[in-house]
């Protein structure tokens, strides 16, 4: 073989490899759904998708494969806005799906009313993950700002989970100061509420002063806390906390449930325009409804999401969830749009914490 032939053969080989690796596999005759989701649902949807495919085959005789995409909730929403053709989205906050509706018109603005429980088939909350034996004696939110305690949380600017952390801490102070959260938004208690809001801002600022690393997403923070051994308390999604314990060692961490936390409602929605384009509306709708079915609820509880219908889940799974007072974002913060604007947008309350004095 001459050099010339070798060059030609190599080039042809490289080209063939490039084409083979980049072209999509061509499977025919079956429906495909794309579920664009956020980070901590990976394990849950892996199992749920199989169960759905079986059920759909039994019911209709058609094969369906569900493809998953995971990532930070905001980033995923942006991908859909920019043209990632998701049939359904299952994200961390309603704000992100609102953004899809508002910026791309791919689904109607009132999407959240289309499914039960604000379109959240399962809920979660924010808990504390501490090191075994709880050496710093962390019991509640106040303990987080004790001297010598380091707190791990992702950056609320980039992580949906971190926004829940921040708001949960805020809600705790309001409750502590006011005693009754129904005073928020009631004109009769306006002054009292304003004072409490100031205390909440001070508390959250003090809390974030104790954060040595701001990872961009929840999984990154889990690694920082669990594998790098940094920090004393990790503010975490409840399901992430359970996962960290199961994956990384029961003998290393324990979960502390504070006196009050926030009801995190990760919503799901059909992306109408893309589903219609793919002709998958029926399957996609059935997929979302299946989340509310006994099978879906059982699997959600198995993967540490709080089921909206606990009666369908295994009693043993449900027992793992500690009862805790949960406030909703509508109740205290006037909904996501308002919370985002006041707290997390540029120049908002969160940015004030890091303003140089």
């Amino acid at each position: 073989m001459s050099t010339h032939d070798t060059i030609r053969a190599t080039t042809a080989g490289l080209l063939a490899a490039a084409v083979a690796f980049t072209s999509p596999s061509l499977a025919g005759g079956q429906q495909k759904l794309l579920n664009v989701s956020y980070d901590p649902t990976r394990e849950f949807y892996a199992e749920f998708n199989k169960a759905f495919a079986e059920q759909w085959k039994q019911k209709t005789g058609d094969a369906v494969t569900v493809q998953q995409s995971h990532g930070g909730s905001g980033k995923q929403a942006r991908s859909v806005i920019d043209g990632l053709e998701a049939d359904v989205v299952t994200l961390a906050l309603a704000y992100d799906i609102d953004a899809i509706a508002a910026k791309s018109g791919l689904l109607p603005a009132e999407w959240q009313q289309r499914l039960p429980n604000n379109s959240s088939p399962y809920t979660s909350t924010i808990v504390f993950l501490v090191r075994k034996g709880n050496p710093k004696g962390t019991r509640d939110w106040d303990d987080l700002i004790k001297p010598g305690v380091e707190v791990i949380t992702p950056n609320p600017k980039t992580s949906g989970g971190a926004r829940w952390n921040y708001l949960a801490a805020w809600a705790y102070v309001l409750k502590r100061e006011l005693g009754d959260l129904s005073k928020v938004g009631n004109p009769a208690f306006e002054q009292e509420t304003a004072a409490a809001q100031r205390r909440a801002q001070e508390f959250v600022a003090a809390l974030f002063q104790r954060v040595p690393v701001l990872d961009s997403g929840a999984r990154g923070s889990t690694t920082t806390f669990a594998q790098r051994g940094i920090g004393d308390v990790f503010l975490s999604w409840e399901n992430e906390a359970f996962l960290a314990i199961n994956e990384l060692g029961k003998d290393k961490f324990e979960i502390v449930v504070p006196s009050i936390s926030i009801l995190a409602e990760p919503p799901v929605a059909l992306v109408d325009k893309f589903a219609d384009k793919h002709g998958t509306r029926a399957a996609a709708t059935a997929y979302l409804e299946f989340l509310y079915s006994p099978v879906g609820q059982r699997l959600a509880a198995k993967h540490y999401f709080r089921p909206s219908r606990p009666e369908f889940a295994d009693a043993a799974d449900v027992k793992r969830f500690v009862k805790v007072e949960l406030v909703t974002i509508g109740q205290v913060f006037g909904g996501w749009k308002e919370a985002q604007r006041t707290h997390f947008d540029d120049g908002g309350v969160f940015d004030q914490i890091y303003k140089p004095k």
Partner: protein
Amino acid sequence: MQNEECRMQNAKSGEWQVMRIALKQHSVLPGFGVSLGYTMTYLSLVVLVPLAALFARSASAGWGRFWAAICDPRVVASYRLTFGAALLAALINAVFGLIIAWSLVRYRFPGRRILDALVDLPFALPTAVSGIALTAIYAQGGWLGRWLEPLGIKVAFTPLGVLVALTFIGLPFVVRTVQPALEDLEKEMEEAAASLGAGRWQTLRRVILPALFPALLTGFSLALARAIGEYGSVIFIAGNMPMKSEITSLLIITKLEQYDYAGAAAIAVVMLLASFGLLFGVNALQWWVNRRQRVGA
């Protein structure tokens, strides 16, 4: 004095010649028109169109918001970190990359080929992997972090960590650009210098370094450009504390998370212009050095 004038004239006539060639476009090689057209189309599609879109996007915000986005104290702090760390990392790489290239080219020792292959690793490794690996090593309790901590040196989650990551990813650029130049540098030149009575230091400074300088400068600017744009590896080791260890790319991502496309594009435009300015400066320096060398010779 006469000498000086003579030199200037030489330089001028040299310039003229270059310009004449460029204008007449006569070349023994055929296909100039086709290849120029192809180059322009390709560059436009791959480079110019996306950049133009970026500028258009940032303009959509209006001047006031554009200005507010790029002058925010937090953003300014991130410019300082990004460009400062990138420059420093490129300088470190220029020095140590040169030494590595020198050892690899000039000496024969067992394991040389393996070392040579190792240099490319930071190229091939996904940046996120390098970031995670570096963080694991330098974090408190990590292999190196454990020993540095008692000395009061914190690397991971500080600006120093950013510097370490940028040095890591930039190394191959310097080594790989200097290596061929070193190989071309004939040993006879050094021997000639020595036989003409030059000491080792003089040979290095007067013979070797000037010959290597253009390649070194190219390597430096490549390492610099890469470091300015780096995201993946830095994000894990930086700690991302506002005002302290946030790089500019992270702020762009942050803006995107808030669906503030115009603000993100505005910061990107600043980075683009600054990078362009830096690279332009490096190229101008290179051109100046080349000319001085040619004229001097």
